[in-house]
């Protein structure tokens, strides 16, 4: 019965026989997305320990303080879950759903920022630092914006690097898109923790610095995704 079955070409067989070590099957997209939770929580905890909780958490209340962060965190997991689907040849989600999730993430960040500002329009940086430093930050708010932007980009970058390792075998048709999605997820997860620590709630700061950090991690993820995709193509192009 198998006589007429096509046989793999010699060169292909050689390449495969050279590396046949057993591999562990990839987890499902949701499990893959949930892998970020411990690392994201760890990084957020370090941030909270270093900066401390924002002084107006009492005014914000548990819903707008912790609840809004939890919502952002869940949305971050959804973005990474979509990225994991995008990386699976047979499991891609409809494009509309991908764009909808990205738009929802943007809207949630903007909405939470505006709601936080309207509830507690705090713009004085009250950090656990010498009063002189707090005064300098108050006079030059761009320093605070710069510190928040750089800090949350670096923290998000740790998660992006982790995802790049997790998704190194990704088979995404659109690797740049998959990378941007997990990058945005990483940025959003870090922002969920960062906003509970950052004492400034003015929209220009929250959107300009924290929002820019989310965009930066999304771009970083997109670049790494593109690099990994190109590398895959390049490896393929080297065959004889």
């Amino acid at each position, binding site marked *: 019965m*198998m006589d007429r*079955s*096509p*046989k*793999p*070409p010699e*060169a*292909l*067989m050689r*390449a*495969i*026989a050279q*590396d*046949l*070590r*057993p*591999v*562990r*099957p*990839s*987890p*499902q997209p949701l499990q893959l997305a949930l892998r970020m939770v411990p690392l994201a929580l760890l990084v957020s905890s370090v941030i909270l320990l270093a900066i401390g909780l924002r002084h107006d958490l009492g005014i914000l209340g548990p819903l707008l303080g912790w609840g809004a962060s939890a919502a952002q965190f869940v949305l971050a997991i959804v973005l990474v879950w979509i990225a994991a689907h*995008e*990386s*699976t*040849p*047979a*499991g*891609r*989600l*409809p*494009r*509309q759903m*991908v764009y909808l999730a990205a738009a929802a993430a943007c809207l949630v960040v903007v909405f939470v920022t505006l709601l936080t500002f309207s509830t507690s329009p705090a713009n004085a940086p009250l950090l656990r630092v010498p009063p002189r430093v707090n005064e300098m930050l108050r006079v030059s708010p761009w320093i605070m914006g710069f510190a928040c932007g750089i800090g949350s980009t670096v923290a998000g970058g740790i998660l992006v690097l982790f995802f790049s390792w997790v998704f190194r*075998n*990704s*088979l*995404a*048709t659109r690797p740049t898109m998959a990378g941007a999605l997990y990058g945005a997820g990483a940025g959003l997860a870090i922002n969920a923790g960062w906003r509970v620590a950052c004492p400034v709630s003015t929209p220009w700061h929250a959107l300009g610095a924290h929002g820019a950090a989310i965009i930066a991690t999304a771009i970083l993820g997109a670049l790494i995704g593109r690099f990994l*995709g190109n590398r*895959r*193509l390049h*490896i*393929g*192009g080297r*065959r004889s």
Partner: protein
Amino acid sequence: MSEGDQELRALMIRYQGGSLEAFQELYAQVAPGVRRYLLHLAAGSEIADDLLQETFLQMHRSRAAYNSNYAVKPWVFGLARNVFLMNRRAARRWAKVHESREDLPEFPVLPEADRLGSQDEIRRSIACLAPDQAEALLLHHEWGFSFEEIAGMLGISAAAARARASRGMADLRVALNSLQRARA
């Protein structure tokens, strides 16, 4: 889950465990269909055979990325499509894709359309359909994928996959009917 699919999943798991025989068996079962699909995508270009090898090489490199919750065939077909698109992006290959052969690609004649015209007419009519419609039509009617599976491969909703296949079939009927009228 069909019996054939169960067998393919079992083969894939054995292959992930390091069995060369499982890979050979997998190749024997999946490669002919994937080759025809690639021929369709590459418009009959000879690059399809290169892409077939590339698909199985990619599958090997990324065999860990397979999860047994997915059916194997849509996964490999999706991977083949991915390989085709990635290669099309590489400019040096793009030119080769367009060096299509004179004869029409050997993608199959749909059983549903078999009565409507000769095999050659059907092939020609399919080649004239909008590419996304022809792809959905063939994936569903020829390779037997469900609309959910097609949706997962193409990154569209199942309803969109159904609509593309259905519009493709309607356009194919129109094209074949007009051919028949012209002949009469």
